[in-house]
């Protein structure tokens, strides 16, 4: 008797789950602009549909999530436990693969971490049962629910491999990353994906420089965004990026703070180059590279000031300190590399000399900027001094500094 009751109960559960899955998929069909999904915390079952659809937002009440997931999960795993041949037959057949997609939609919205379910979707895409554009939309929906989902980002990269780079809406992809990063602090996968976008669309460099400056001003403790900006800066210099008629005021201000006055009798670029690259054979470096050097150092200098301002506004924070060091190091490193007639470092380079290996080869004493930086930076507390010693090799005691 009890077994019969259990079977009946399980059947009822199954029927209910099937209905909920149908309701969810009905929303997918009805709303082409669906853009968010969430589980609505509601532990009691009020005997009405747990599927909520309001203005392009889809919700599923939490009381049914475990049952629906369990049911969808079992169905999908049974499919996968068949032989390869049997699975292929299901994928080829329109009705059956549509059914599979319905379970996948629900299972992945509730549990986006299940790699195998994304694989089934990939197979359906390969067999033209799912369209790439709809899949991009689906993965964006998953990201609205779980902004940290690496599976969703990885899926998007895989989908884009079928499209040519110039057909892809890269700014839209950046906004997906930005939305995910905004919702979830230090969102590793969102920023990593953003680097992938930048690699494919280097034309976005300028807008990225602007967007990231806004982002770090607002998200003061999100170190992932600061790290990305550091990579952006290196990439800009690597690509020789610069902007015409740039006043370079941040760089001038930074040098002024180190008590280095720019010669007012020559033009701005020349004055700065004299301070940063004294006694340097300019003919050995191309003019565009020098312009890029000044432009990027100026961005770095404005970030130094930003960190100082933010510290004054919000108090001491690890992010401000770390970013200030990183951008300062950028300026020092690019100066030293130019002075040693070395090419700029590629972001993805392995090997090649690190800055602290190069510095000892170098006579810093004849370089007013480096001397000034060393003097100022080593006077900023023990911890920072130790950092300078490790990263800028400035720890050596000099008689002039005593």
């Amino acid at each position: 008797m009890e077994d019969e009751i259990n079977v009946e109960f399980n059947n009822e559960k199954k029927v209910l789950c099937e209905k909920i899955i149908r309701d969810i998929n009905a929303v997918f069909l009805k709303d082409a602009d669906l853009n968010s999904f969430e589980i609505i915390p509601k532990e009691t079952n009020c005997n009405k549909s747990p599927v909520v659809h309001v203005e392009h937002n889809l919700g599923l009440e939490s009381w049914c999530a475990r049952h629906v997931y369990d049911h969808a999960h079992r169905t999908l795993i049974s499919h996968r436990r068949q032989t390869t041949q049997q699975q292929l037959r299901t994928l080829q057949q329109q009705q059956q693969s549509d059914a599979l997609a319905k379970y996948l939609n629900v299972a992945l919205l509730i549990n986006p971490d299940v790699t195998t379910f994304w694989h089934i979707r990939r197979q359906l895409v390969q067999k033209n049962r799912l369209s790439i554009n709809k899949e991009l939309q689906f993965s964006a929906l998953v990201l609205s629910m779980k902004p940290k989902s690496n599976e969703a980002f990885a899926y998007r990269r895989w989908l884009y491999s079928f499209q040519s780079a110039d057909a892809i809406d890269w700014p839209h992809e950046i906004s997906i990353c930005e939305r995910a990063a905004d919702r979830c602090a230090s969102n590793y996968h969102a920023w990593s994906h953003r680097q992938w976008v930048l690699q494919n669309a280097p034309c976005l460099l300028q807008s990225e420089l602007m967007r990231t400056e806004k982002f770090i001003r607002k998200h003061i403790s999100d170190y992932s965004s600061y790290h990305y900006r550091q990579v952006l800066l290196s990439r800009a210099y690597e690509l020789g990026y610069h902007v015409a008629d740039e006043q370079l005021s941040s760089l001038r201000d930074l040098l002024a703070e180190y008590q280095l006055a720019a010669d007012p009798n020559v033009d701005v670029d020349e004055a700065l180059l004299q301070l940063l690259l004294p006694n340097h054979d300019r003919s050995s470096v191309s003019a565009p590279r020098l312009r890029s050097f000044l432009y990027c150092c100026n961005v770095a200098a404005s970030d130094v000031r930003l960190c100082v301002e933010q510290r004054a506004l919000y108090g001491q924070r690890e992010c401000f300190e770390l970013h200030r060091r990183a951008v300062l190091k950028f300026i020092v490193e690019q100066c030293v590399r130019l002075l040693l007639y070395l090419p700029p470092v590629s972001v993805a380079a392995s090997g090649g000399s690190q800055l602290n290996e190069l510095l000892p080869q170098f006579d810093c004493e004849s370089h007013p900027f480096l001397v000034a930086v060393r003097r100022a930076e080593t006077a900023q507390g023990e911890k920072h001094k130790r950092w300078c010693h490790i990263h800028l090799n400035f720890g050596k005691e000099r008689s002039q500094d005593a």
Partner: protein
Amino acid sequence: MDFTTFVKPSNGGASSENENETTKKLEFWKHVEYIENHGKQEDDYEYCMTEFLRMSGIYWGVTALDIMGQLDRLDRKSIIEFVKRCQCPNSGGFSPCEGHDPHMLYTLSAVQILCTYDALDEIDCEAVVRYVVGLQQPDGSFFGDKWGEVDTRFSFCAVATLTLLQRLEGSIDVEKAVKFVMSCCNQTDGGFGSKPGAESHAGLIYCCVGLLSLTQRLHLLDVDKLGWWLCERQLPTGGLNGRPEKLPDVCYSWWVLSSLTIMGRLHWISSEKLQQFILSCQDLETGGFSDRTGNMPDIFHTLFGIGGLSLLGHSNLKLINPTLCMPQYIIDRLGIKPQRLTLA
């Protein structure tokens, strides 16, 4: 709007109620019970939701119990049978559970379980070697599976799997694998990310340092820079985070500590405070460890809590090998000698 930006700096997240407690002790038998009973309730929702990583879950449980000297509490035979069933006959790789697709992550976990049980002869090892070798890319990196995601975690899994199978020589291109890992090193802090240019992350640092340890290439590390960065992970409460400005998490007690141990710099961290933090993450009712004080425990954080305590020299625990995260006596039995830098 990201409200976490208003979180006060350097708080560590510890709840105040624990601060007045005297030195906590390790709730040894509670943890044994917790692991033993893990997954026994058939309709456990969490268990169903985590089926996609079951192989790793078993590895975490097996390793934690073995470190506690209680491995015989688990059914060796049924675990080995489970592992065998998860080997994919086509690719040679291992799935996390039946019905799921094979992946590098679960291939390592499967091999780790079988090494612990001394049962490698139960599976097709040659097929595993072929699977791993087949996933290496021209730039030395590794896919996680045939669908093509690259991540330094997979590099570590590949090298660790082959090391445990005693097949690192003459299989993959080790030189290129090392080169790829080094291309993921960030000059600004000496740390490593998942791909070239990616942010330094303690978990990925463990994977990269571990790979360098297994390939005897630790000299490529800038120990001062990286050691510094790793020590900066310790917060005033004693716990360790994985990246700047993040909350402490018990699993980082493993990844940061094991990396420092491999680098010969374990003493750069305050062990007393860390031990207190790890112990505060114990669930005194159910057993097991949670990510931080007051949260729900899980098997993942339980292994890394136990592992961290073992590295810190806790008396009731067997030695754990920092490179492979397996009991040291197993690594000795296999004759494997991952490189470790001397204390400095």
